[in-house]
């Protein structure tokens, strides 16, 4: 997904001289194509993420449209105050890109895991939170974020995430994409965990159910129109994310629907409230976090859903 980010940014930067990239000394050759024609706009800010966030805000005030790019924990939690004050409070159109989100860098340990970033970013007024599921979603949404001209957090994966879409639908920022219509049960997924959601839907289908599958790429603002409709159509809503089960996407959905009349039962699946360590791969880490079809089905079974 990071390759897609670099490719799309390079394409967009050819037509828009106001686009700037600040990166915190990562990416190696990733941004070479951008540097080939706009070296001065691909700025290595050094391993100084807080300064990078504030510099980006300053450049936005002067008419540039900056991206800041580094590994998710360092582009969100390490520099949180700079994002809060300089980007969100001053409402500057900086696109904060977190690469290797969730458990993508599982083997690097909890220092490189991000399971709190959605919670942090969605707590900031003016901030938008977007979690594409694959390179295709990234490519569809990125130009729309630039058009927004507002603070955005763009939570992306690492590399070689499987494609999740068939037929390349048109996606719209702020609106869910229904991957497969269904009834009684909805599976709402955000970000790179979509393949697990697809597996879960297959499993539920084998149990004779007909779940709806939704890519909820925009976490903030929530697609309330969809949720209002979902409340009337489903008995159970399942949320899935590679993020702490508290404070993230599932919490956002739960907060919204719980204030409506006759809301369905909400089942949130994510990383439990603990650090996941001593793992060698993302699959390993997901297993340790209980993010497997078997674990989810077991919980759903205990709750009488299946």
């Amino acid at each position, binding site marked *: 997904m990071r390759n897609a980010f670099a490719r799309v940014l390079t394409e967009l930067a050819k037509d828009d001289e106001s686009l*700037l990239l600040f990166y915190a000394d990562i990416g190696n050759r990733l941004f070479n194509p951008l540097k080939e024609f706009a070296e*001065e*706009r691909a*700025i290595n*800010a*050094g391993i*100084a993420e*807080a*300064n990078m*966030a*504030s*510099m*980006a*805000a*300053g*450049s*936005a*005030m*002067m*008419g*540039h449209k*900056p991206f800041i790019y580094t590994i998710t924990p360092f582009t969100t939690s390490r520099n949180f*105050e*700079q994002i809060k*004050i*300089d980007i969100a*409070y*001053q*409402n500057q159109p900086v696109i904060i890109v977190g690469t290797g989100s969730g458990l993508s860098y599982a083997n690097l340990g909890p220092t490189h895991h991000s399971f709190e970033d959605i919670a942090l970013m969605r707590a900031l007024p003016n901030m938008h939170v977007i979690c594409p599921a694959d390179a295709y979603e990234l490519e569809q949404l990125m130009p729309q974020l630039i058009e927004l001209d507002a603070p955005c957090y763009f939570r992306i994966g690492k590399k070689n995430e499987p494609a999740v879409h068939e037929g390349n639908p048109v996606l719209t920022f702020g609106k869910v994409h229904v991957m497969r219509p269904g009834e009684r049960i909805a599976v709402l997924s955000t970000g790179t965990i979509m393949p697990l959601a697809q597996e879960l839907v297959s499993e539920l289908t084998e149990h004779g159910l007909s779940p709806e599958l939704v890519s909820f790429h925009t976490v903030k603002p929530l697609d309330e129109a969809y949720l209002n409709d979902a409340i009337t159509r489903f008995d159970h809503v399942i949320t899935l994310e590679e993020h702490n089960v508290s404070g993230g996407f599932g919490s956002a959905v739960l907060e919204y629907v719980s204030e409506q009349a006759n809301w369905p039962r909400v089942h949130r699946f994510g990383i439990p409230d603990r650090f996941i360590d001593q793992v060698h791969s993302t699959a390993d880490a997901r297993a340790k976090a209980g993010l497997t079809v078997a674990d989810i089905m077991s919980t759903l079974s205990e709750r009488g859903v299946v």
Partner: protein
Amino acid sequence: MTLNSIAAQIRYTLCDVSSQTKTPHLGSCLSCVDILTVLYWRTMHITPNNPADPERDYFLLGKGHAASALYTTLAYRDYFSPTALYEHGQTGSQFEEHPGIHAPAGVETVSGSLGHALSLATGMALSKQLQGAKNRFYVLMGDGEINEGTVWEAAMFAAGKRLSNLVAIVDFNKLQGTGESTEIMHLEPLEEKWRAFGWHTMRVDGHDISALEQALEAAKSIQQPVCIVADTVKGKGVSFMENDNNWHYRIPTEEEVAQAKQELGIS
């Protein structure tokens, strides 16, 4: 009016506004008045009747708790009426204790949490350098403020990019919130630190108007970022406030304001 008498008027108004509106940080405000006076009356290209002039120079206040000093300077520089200053701290007022997004015309960015201004100004200066524009950026920081790591991150970056449109001024009054800044952190030799980070440095008496003016003028032709370490006195200009760190938080009584008025030579 001479700049010295403008500075004296600003100092008296700061004391009076602090007393009447119960706004603290008087000591921090008084230490930087001469620096602000020189910047706004001599150094910077500004157009108070058109604060959004795209060709203007920018001033960023790092030590946001000295907001009153900036507001008062702007008022006397005709951005708005000095009488407005007495709305300070009231509900709905533009004059927040730390400048917010609704701060009055002339305030370029919010400030309050320390260590942000140099980074913001570095991004701004970089942008303008890329755009080939002539704007210059002036940042005033407290000596306590430069405890923050982001200041030194920005210092390294700005030097690396040779941002000759960027000037940092350290209001080196030797006192921070709860003690002596040179003891709380190892600040000295401060000028050498900035030089080692790749900046052209100067050290001046921060209350010598003509020395400040010369230093800031000289900075305009130096082809790298410039740091001016300005030796100042916290509470400068009012005998019983000078070097007394209680005035970081204390509010003067009416009698104390009257004495300050007399000492400052305000009729």
